[in-house]
């Protein structure tokens, strides 16, 4: 596409199929402790 560059390949809808295993890191165990920063976590199954 000439006018648009999409940065991600996966969509959130697609993660409904296999998601929710719960093995990924709890956000407050990374660094925050005072905010909720879930969007920056990584999926355990994509490591």
């Amino acid at each position, binding site marked *: 596409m000439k006018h648009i560059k999409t940065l991600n390949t996966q969509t959130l*809808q697609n993660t409904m199929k296999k998601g929710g295993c719960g093995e990924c890191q709890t956000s407050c165990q990374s660094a925050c402790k005072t*905010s909720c920063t879930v969007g920056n976590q990584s999926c355990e199954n994509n490591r």
Partner: protein
Amino acid sequence: MVHQYKNNGYHILLDVNSGSVHVVDELVYEMVPYYKEKELSEIIALLKDRYPKEEIREAAADLEELINAGKLYTEDIYENYIQEIVEAKKPVVKALCLHIAHDCNLACRYCFAEEGEYHGRRALMSYEVGKKALDFLIANSGSRKNLEVDFFGGEPLLNWQVVKDLVAYGREQEKLHQKNFRFTLTTNGVLLNDEVQEFVNREMSNVVLSIDGRKEVHDYMRPFRNGAGSYDRILPKFQKLADSRNQERYYVRGTFTRHNKDFSKDVLHLADLGFQQISVEPVVGTEEETYALRAEDLPEVFAEYDRLAAEMVRRYRTGKAFTFFHFMLDLTGGPCVAKRLSGCGSGTEYLAVTPWGDLYPCHQFVGDEKYRMGNVDEGITRPDIRDTFKNCNVYSKEKCRDCFAKFYCSGGCAANAHKFHGSIHETYDISCELERKRVECAIMIKAAEAEKDEVESDEEK
């Protein structure tokens, strides 16, 4: 819902419900708000004086391609899905914040734990209580394999022997129960030494090192009890520890307040000191605190996030990149939508344990008796509290429904909402404003990185 904005010269579209991020040219940026409502002929009529007709047709074809691929103007289809997941799930606990010491050797001005004491008395967790906590975690973890335990305080190094003993106990138990413990430590560094470093590097999957940035900023907010600053005491030890971990699996973690709204200087100070994993976060405080951020400070703080993001892009381009926790964004392998909707897990998957073994929804609720959920001997005795947290998500919060950042913060911090509004189903507005700004900056950085990577790959060809 499509959120569109410009930052650092980039025109960006975030299709909220698919999570798709598109970097577009000015023509597409202009077309997006009305593209769905208008016929192509109307759009051409509107724009033909400024863009060639052929270009407009091409841009429309690009937009159609995204729509057909489910990457633009998508609907929110998750409300029932998350309800089904919540109802179907048997409650499991997978992470504990162990308050190993309700005591501290610093007297930080902004401490939510009131210098480690959490509205209570000073206390250290005994090995017996810690063991029961780990047993409780294993027993309640269901089929989850990865179990997380954060040694927190107060200052956990004030009770170091118990930390080591509990790690040893955990390592023994994980084999018996086919689990994998991931231990983390949060420390102010005062008691950090070679022995601690060696143990931490062997056993801890992450370590959080508290430092606020520039010496004067750090020393003002993080003094010893006698008023002296702690910067000079901790900095060399943190640098040594970070290097000994190969600059990985750690964060230097600071707090910015109303006193240092120019916090990008603190972040860059830490980067210039050689740290590559940096988190500097806004303080959470009510307006009567002089250090608390106020609504009127937001424009200044937004500008500071923009400055920081632009500088990070500059450093990325010159091979001096570092990670800033609040700008981290994984566009290729980020969390699934179930995770994004269930949030931090406080009160359900994630619990805090006091030195006496009482269970709370998270470290920030500790000391508020209304939220005591049980203890390590009897387990959860107040499932009603757990259920309240379980049913708290972006759909239970009115303010989240139309927010473009809802799948990045998952409705925000329950403890902050409770602190400001007395209900976990509310949101803390300042924090929401900051989160939205950070998501915008984080996406812009990704756009800039993709551009640089593309240029380099073209050059290689």
